[in-house]
C-alpha cells in the first residue's frame, strides 16, 4: 500500500511538471470501443476508434468527397483495377515501416472478417505492384471501389504475425474471445492507446513520429470515458468535467447553446428512420391506396419540429442529400383530408386495428416518435396497439416480424443509396441476403432489377439517374413510410475547436483537433 501511494505522489509531480505545456482532452461518448481489433466488428464506435489509432488509405471530407491519406494518389487502370500509390516514410506505433505488404495483408484479413467481408465481396484480390504501390481488382466493374477503400486501415503485418502467449495466432479474428488483436494495436494513427479499462476509461497519448506533420492537432493526452446516460453526459460537459461530448440528445440542445462556456455543432445526418407496413400480416397494406393514405396521414415536419426539436430533416425517400439516389423534388406529403379520401376509396372508411412495435433505446426519441405516429394514424381510424421494447428484445421480435408496423433505422456503410435499397426494400431473398430488413415484405421486381443494374454502372451520372428512378418508384408506390434523417450533434467547451474535424459520417478526426488553452 505504501508503495502505491508513493508512486502516486511521484506520478503527480512528474505529470504536474509535464502538464505545463501538454494539453489533455477529456472526451465522453455514449459507449467505449468494444475491442481494439478494428476488423472484429463493423460499428460506428469501432470506426471512430480506427480513425484515432489507424489511418485509412483515403477518407471522406466534409463535402462527401475523398482526401488522400496513406494512399497519396490513385488512378483507375481498367474497368476492374484501381491502382493506389502509397505514401512513403510512414511508421507504425511499433516502429515498423509501412509498405505495400502491410496493405495487402490488411486487405486479406478484411476478406476473412465476418463483419467486413460483405463490403469487400465485389473484389477478387489486391496485388502488390512494388514496395509502395498496390492494385485493387474487382470481380466486375464496380462503381464504389473508393467508398470501400475508406474501410482499409493498413495494419502492421509484422506486429500481428506469429502466435501470442496462449498459443493463438496473433492475427486471429474471433468475437468476444480476448484475442491478441483485441488487446493490442499497432497502427499508423495520431494516437497510441496507453491504458484501457473496458466500460470505464481508455487513455491515448500522441504518437511521437506521426507521419502527418502538417496536422494542426495539439492534443497530447486524450481520455475517453463512456457516459451512457444522456443527462449525465451533458452535465459532465456543463460542469467542466469533460471537454467534448457526443451524441447530444435533442432535449439538451437549448441548454448547451444557452450556456456561455459551451458550444454546439449540429449537422444533418445520413441515418434514415422509417416504418414498414407488413403486407403479409395485414390485408389492407397490400392495397397501394391504403399505403398512400398512411403516407399522407404522417406529419414528418411536426415530428421533426416538436419531438426532435428541429434536430432532424423530414424525409420522403431513403437517400439523404449528397447520396447518388437523392431526388430533390420528392417532398413529404402531409394531407389528412386526402388520406381519409384514399381510405374511403380503398373501402376502409371506418379503418381497422393494427399492432405496432418500436425500440425505446436504439434511435433518438424512437418511442416518442412511435407514439406520435400512432396518434396520427388514429386520426384516419387506424387504431394502433403500440408496444415499445429495449433493442435487445426488439431485434429478435423484428426478425420474427411480430407486428404489423415496425420501425427501423438505417445508415449506409458505403454512404451510397444502393446499400439502402439492398437491405430495406428489395424482395427478401434468404440466400442472396437481400431485403434482410424489409419488414414490409414489399416486393417490386422492376425496382430490384434497376438497383442491380446500377451496381454495375461505373459512370456516376447514369448510375445516379437509375437510383433516383428507384426512389421515385418507391415514392409513388408508398413502399414504406419515411420519417426523417437523424441529425448529428456534438458539443464542446469553447476552447475545444471541434468544427473543422467533424463530418457527416460521425467520424471525428481527433488527430487534427486544436485545443486552445
Amino acid at each position: 500500500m505504501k508503495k502505491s501511494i508513493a508512486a502516486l505522489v511521484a506520478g503527480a509531480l512528474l505529470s504536474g511538471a509535464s502538464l505545463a505545456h501538454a494539453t489533455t482532452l477529456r472526451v465522453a461518448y455514449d459507449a467505449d470501443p468494444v475491442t481494439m481489433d478494428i476488423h472484429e466488428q463493423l460499428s460506428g464506435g469501432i470506426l471512430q476508434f480506427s480513425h484515432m489509432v489507424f489511418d485509412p488509405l483515403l477518407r471522406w471530407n466534409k463535402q462527401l468527397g475523398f482526401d488522400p491519406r496513406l494512399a497519396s494518389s490513385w488512378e483507375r487502370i481498367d474497368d476492374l483495377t484501381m491502382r493506389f500509390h502509397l505514401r512513403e516514410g510512414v511508421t507504425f506505433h511499433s516502429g515498423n515501416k509501412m509498405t505495400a505488404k502491410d496493405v495487402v495483408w490488411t486487405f486479406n484479413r478484411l476478406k476473412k472478417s465476418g463483419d467486413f467481408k460483405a463490403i469487400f465481396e465485389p473484389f477478387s484480390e489486391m496485388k502488390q505492384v512494388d514496395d509502395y504501390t498496390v492494385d485493387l481488382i474487382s470481380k466486375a466493374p464496380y462503381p464504389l471501389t473508393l467508398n470501400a477503400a475508406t474501410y482499409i486501415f493498413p495494419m502492421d503485418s509484422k506486429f500481428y504475425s506469429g502466435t501470442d502467449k496462449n498459443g493463438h495466432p496473433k492475427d486471429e479474428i474471433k468475437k468476444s474471445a480476448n484475442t491478441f488483436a483485441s488487446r493490442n494495436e499497432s497502427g499508423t494513427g495520431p494516437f497510441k492507446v496507453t491504458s484501457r479499462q473496458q466500460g470505464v476509461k481508455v487513455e491515448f497519448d500522441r504518437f511521437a513520429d506521426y507521419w502527418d506533420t502538417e496536422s494542426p492537432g495539439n492534443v497530447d493526452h486524450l481520455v475517453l470515458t463512456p457516459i451512457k446516460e444522456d443527462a449525465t453526459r451533458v452535465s459532465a460537459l456543463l460542469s467542466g468535467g469533460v471537454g467534448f461530448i457526443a451524441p447530444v440528445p435533442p432535449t439538451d440542445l437549448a441548454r448547451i447553446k444557452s450556456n456561455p462556456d459551451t458550444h454546439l455543432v449540429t449537422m444533418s445526418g445520413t441515418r434514415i428512420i422509417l416504418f414498414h407496413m407488413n403486407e403479409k400480416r395485414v390485408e389492407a397494406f397490400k392495397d397501394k391506396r391504403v399505403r398512400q393514405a398512411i403516407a399522407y396521414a404522417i406529419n414528418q415536419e411536426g415530428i421533426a419540429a416538436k419531438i426532435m426539436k428541429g434536430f432532424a430533416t423530414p424525409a420522403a425517400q431513403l437517400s439523404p442529400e449528397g447520396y447518388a439516389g437523392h431526388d430533390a423534388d420528392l417532398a413529404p406529403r402531409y394531407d389528412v383530408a386526402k388520406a381519409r379520401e384514399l381510405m374511403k376509396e380503398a373501402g376502409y372508411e371506418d379503418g381497422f386495428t393494427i399492432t405496432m412495435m418500436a425500440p425505446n433505446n436504439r434511435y433518438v426519441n424512437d418511442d416518442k416518435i412511435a407514439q406520435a405516429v400512432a396518434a396520427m394514424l388514429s386520426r384516419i381510424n387506424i387504431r394502433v396497439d403500440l408496444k415499445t421494447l429495449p433493442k435487445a428484445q426488439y431485434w429478435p421480435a423484428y426478425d420474427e416480424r411480430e407486428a404489423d408496423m415496425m420501425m427501423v433505422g438505417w445508415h449506409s456503410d458505403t454512404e451510397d443509396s444502393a446499400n439502402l435499397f439492398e437491405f430495406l426494400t428489395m424482395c427478401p431473398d434468404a440466400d442472396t441476403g437481400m431485403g434482410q430488413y424489409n419488414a414490409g415484405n414489399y416486393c417490386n421486381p422492376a425496382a430490384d432489377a434497376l438497383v442491380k443494374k446500377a451496381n454495375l454502372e461505373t459512370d456516376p451520372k447514369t448510375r445516379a439517374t437509375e437510383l433516383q428512378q428507384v426512389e421515385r418508384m418507391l415514392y409513388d408506390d408508398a413502399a414504406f413510410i419515411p420519417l426523417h434523417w437523424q441529425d448529428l450533434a456534438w458539443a464542446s467547451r469553447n476552447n475545444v475547436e471541434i468544427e473543422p474535424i467533424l463530418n457527416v459520417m460521425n467520424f471525428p478526426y481527433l488527430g487534427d483537433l486544436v485545443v486552445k488553452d
Partner: protein
Amino acid sequence: MIAFLIQRLWHAFLVMFVISLISFSIKGSLGDPVRELVGQSVSVEQRNLLREEMGLNDPLPVQYGRFAWDALHGDLGQSYFYSKPTLDVIVEHMPATLELVLCASLIILLFSVPVGVYAAIRPASWLAKTCMGISVVGISVPVFLTAIVLIQLFSIGVHITPFPTDTDWGTWLNELISTDGGLPSFGRGNELVHLFGTWDTGFFSVDGLLHLLLPAASLASIMLPLFIRLIRSEMLEVLQSDYVRFARAKGISPGRIYFLHALKNTMLPVITVGGVQIGTMVAYTILTETVFQWPGMGLMFLEAITRSDIPLIVAYLMVVGLIFVVTNTLVDLVYGLVNPTVKLTGQHA
C-alpha cells in the same frame, strides 16, 4: 458457530444453483446476444454461423450442463462484451459498488441515529416534525430525481437571483442561495490508489472522495428516511420500558440513558430490518450508478441487460444471490453479538 457457517455456506450454494436454473430458463427472452456483437449489415447466414460457433443453438439442457460443469470448476462462463471470464469482470467492478454502498451506509448511520433518537425523545418539537416531514418526502422522491437535482445544484451550479441584484444585501442573499457547483458529477475520478488485486480505492485521494460524495448522498437518500422512521418508532417503544425508568431512578445522565441504555435496545430490530435494506441497496445501486456513470456492478448489470450479455447476467445474479446470503448471515451474526439473549448457533440458525 462453525456448524452455523457451514450450514449457511451450503444454503449459499443452493441459492446460487436455483438462481442459475431460473436465469437459464429466461435466457430466451433476454434478447439475442449475437445481434449485439455484429454490425447491423451483417448477413443472416453470417450471424447463424457465429451463433453455431458460440454454441447457442444447442438445446438448453446441453448448454446448462456445460455451464454447470464449468461453474463447479469456478468458471462462470465468458462475457460476450468484455470477452473475459465473467467472474473477473464482476470482481473488477465490485470495489466501486462496495465503496459506494459503504459510503452510503456511513452517511445513513451518521444522520439517521441522531435524528431518529431526537425525534423519539422530543416527538412534539417542531425540529422533529420537520425532520420527519423531510424524511417522508425523501421516501417518495424517486432516486433519479434526487440525483439529477444534486448534480444540478452541486455540480453545475444554480444561479438564481430572486432578490434585487443592485442592492448589496440582495446580491449577498442571491449568493447565499446560488451554488457555483464544481463537485464532480460522474465517474470515480483519476486519482484512484491501487490497493490490491483489482481494488482501486477512492478513499485515499481528495479527488476520489469528491467523486464519491454525490453518488453516495443520492444512494443514501433512498434509505435514510426509512432508517430515521425505524429508529424513531423503535426508540419510542423502548423509552416506555421499565429498565429505562429504572436507569432514570438510578440517577443516570439522560445522555447515557438515551445513547446507551435505550439506543442499544433500539438497534436490535433496526439491525435486522436494516440488514435486509442494506441488501436491497444493491438493487438501488443500479439506478444511482447509471445516473452518475459509476463503474460499479449495477451499471455493469444494466449494460449487460441492454447488450443481452447473458453469461454476465447469470454470473451477476448468482454473485448477488451470494451477497444476499452473506449479508443476511452477517446480520444474524451481528444480531447474535448485540443481543446477548440469543445464542449464536441455537435459536437463530
